[in-house]
């Protein structure tokens, strides 16, 4: 057998698990607002911003600020033992608000578990949002009401549900049965983190989306970390390139720039509505906080890195532009601050008032139709707990 050629000696450097030095091929993200808060011109994307009203521009700010306030409050609730866990979205507000503001309210969104700003934008209340984290119920909102699916923790699973939903859209059109409350040009958004892109399900979703030319927008928030693992462990090159592998377009955007996030999502969702098939956004942002309240980022990342990204804070950047461009004045910002102070107090109250789901209700929703084992066990538990109540009453009487 041949030895192949050219017969150069092996010189493979680095070992598995080492921090390799190869730099990913860089793709410049779309940016419309510089870190200094200046507007940059972009032939393709600027027009999407130009037509936004001052009110709309302020609304974007409002949701970003709301998320940040909620985030702080949730973190403190968790510290006080009132939440099982909290996963802050701190730093990702622009990416999320810009993107969701660009699609229709009738477009279904399949979030992962950190899309708090998107959830708020869709009218989900803080206590609905925190329900899962208080562990009183698995989910706090009705996905049908908000066209916003429940959070999915088994990473990337939801990207396949999104693909299935998109298959349903096409089927509806094909059979002229688009539901009344849906747009004729409906699309779906599948959210996913940089880490989760490594899962097989993310791939299978993209395969199905490409094969069936689905109206599906992938929204990758590359926040540089998957808990303690940097994005380069998931991908040597920019994640936006994954789309090329399946033959559809991907765009990399500065996720700390709410205007660029809005414009890119507008452009791509419009293309999808017009029949392009799937598209992908890699939104480059940063998880400014810990992965969750159970995490300790000092173990794996430098404070220099954190400082660097503090300087790129999406809210500060946007706020400075809003003011300088005259879209909002100090009065507006003060008003927003006041409003969210109230929101925080209300939220705390309503979160503390969340009742744990009754176990009977859990039994009743395992299936939608009767199931013998469930019924038997439910009845058993009722008897069993009633026995205790009796014992206690007896004890009470005896005592």
């Amino acid at each position, binding site marked *: 057998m041949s030895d192949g050629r050219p017969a150069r000696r092996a010189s493979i450097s680095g070992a598995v698990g080492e921090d390799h030095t190869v730099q990913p091929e860089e793709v410049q993200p779309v940016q419309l607002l510089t870190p200094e808060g200046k507007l940059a011109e972009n032939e393709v994307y600027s027009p999407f911003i130009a037509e936004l009203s001052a009110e709309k521009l302020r609304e974007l700010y409002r949701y970003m600020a709301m998320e940040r306030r909620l985030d702080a409050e949730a973190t403190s609730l968790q510290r006080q033992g009132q939440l099982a866990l909290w996963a802050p979205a701190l730093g990702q507000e622009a990416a999320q608000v810009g993107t969701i503001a660009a699609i229709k309210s009738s477009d279904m969104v399949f979030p992962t578990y950190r899309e708090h700003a998107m959830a708020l934008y869709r009218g989900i209340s803080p206590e609905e949002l925190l329900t899962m984290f208080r562990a009183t*119920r*698995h*989910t706090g909102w*009705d*996905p*049908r009401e908000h066209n916003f*699916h*429940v959070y*999915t923790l*088994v990473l990337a*699973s939801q*990207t*396949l*549900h*999104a*693909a*299935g*939903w*998109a*298959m*349903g*859209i*096409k*089927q*509806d059109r*094909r*059979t002229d*049965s688009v*539901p009344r409350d849906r747009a004729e040009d409906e699309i779906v958004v599948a959210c996913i983190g940089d880490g989760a892109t490594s899962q*097989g*399900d993310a791939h*299978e*979703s993209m*395969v*199905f989306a490409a*094969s069936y030319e689905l109206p599906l927008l992938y929204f990758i928030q590359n926040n540089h970390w998957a808990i303690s693992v940097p994005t380069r462990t998931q991908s040597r090159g920019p994640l936006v390139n994954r789309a090329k592998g399946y033959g559809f377009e991907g765009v990399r955007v500065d996720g700390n720039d709410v205007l660029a996030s809005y414009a890119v999502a507008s452009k791509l969702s419009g293309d999808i509505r017009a029949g392009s098939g799937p598209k992908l956004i890699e939104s480059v942002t940063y998880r400014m906080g810990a992965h969750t309240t159970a995490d300790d980022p000092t173990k794996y990342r430098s404070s220099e890195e954190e400082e660097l990204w503090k300087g790129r804070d999406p809210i500060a950047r946007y706020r400075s532009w809003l003011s300088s461009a005259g879209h909002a004045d100090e009065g507006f910002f003060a008003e927003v601050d006041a409003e969210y102070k109230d929101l925080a107090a209300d939220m705390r109250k309503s979160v503390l008032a969340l009742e744990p*789901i009754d176990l009977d*209700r*859990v039994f*009743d*929703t*395992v*299936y*939608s*139709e009767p*199931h*013998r*084992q*469930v019924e038997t066990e439910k009845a058993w538990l009722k008897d069993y707990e009633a026995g205790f109540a009796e014992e206690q009453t007896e004890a009470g009487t005896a005592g």
Partner: protein
Amino acid sequence: MSAIKEMVMAKAITAALRDELAADQKTLLIGEDIGALGGVFRVTEGLQAEFGPHRVIDSPLAESGIVGTSIGMAMRGYRPVAEIQFDGFVFPAFNQITTQLAKMHNRTDGRVKVPVTIRLPYGGHIGSIEHHSESPEALFAHTAGLRILAPSNPQDAYWMTRQAIVSDDPVIILEPKRRYWLKGKVDLDNPAPDAFRAQVLREGTDATIATYGPLVPVALAAAEAARAESRSIEVVDIRSISPLDDETIARSAAKTQRLIVAHEAPTFGGIGGEIAARVAERAHHRLLAPVLRVGGFHMPYPPSAQEHRYLPDIDRMLEAVDRSFSYQRSA
């Protein structure tokens, strides 16, 4: 007047799929090779031609994708019937089935229904190669939120398939491959008994054999053989694995006082243990012997040149009956 037709099981399933596709626009089939080819077992033969490629969908080669997108379609109001080509290839979909499909209704507090049916041709005795003869039912039964059916004859296959599709819960139907060509009468107008109940197929007084799917004909033959030895065996077709109709099984066991449970799946950790434990709880003092199990061995399904020594057959069932009787003597 009822339309009773003689059909093989595979074609009874085809008929059920056709009837549901015709009855409800929202019913869709999805799977590998189910379109032009009609599936590797030809169960979907002709359906794509009849209902179109948008209702009988050839999928990319990805089981997690098949189940995951079925969940998404179901959320949107469709009733997808997913075919997994063979038992041994269901595992790439295991995560979607176990953590998503089974839980969706419960975790959304009943708000999201996912009426997905998964057709799973399963079991051995077809002389095939690796991964094509397995019986993974216990790996699904343990997970709450799934219903699991195992028809043993064309009539059940037809009606269980229809009932699975119209059920708002996820249902896995185990189709016993080795019985695809088993003939039987299908009454197209009068439903079989409730899919989720067990059924006494043959009355007897000395011992009960309870089993499901491919082994039901074997149990019936064993009962027939036992008659020669003047033993009267009752045969229970378990039919539904989740929910499990322990009531019917235990009633039979309490009556005959001896129970043998049989399945092709390995005994260790199989659903037979669950049945044995439940029946003992309900009928301990009636039983003259412990519930005995007949099943596969604790090994990967062997090369099929040896499957006859691995699979429960009439002799293995009768040996268990004998063993059950031996307990009485020693008592």
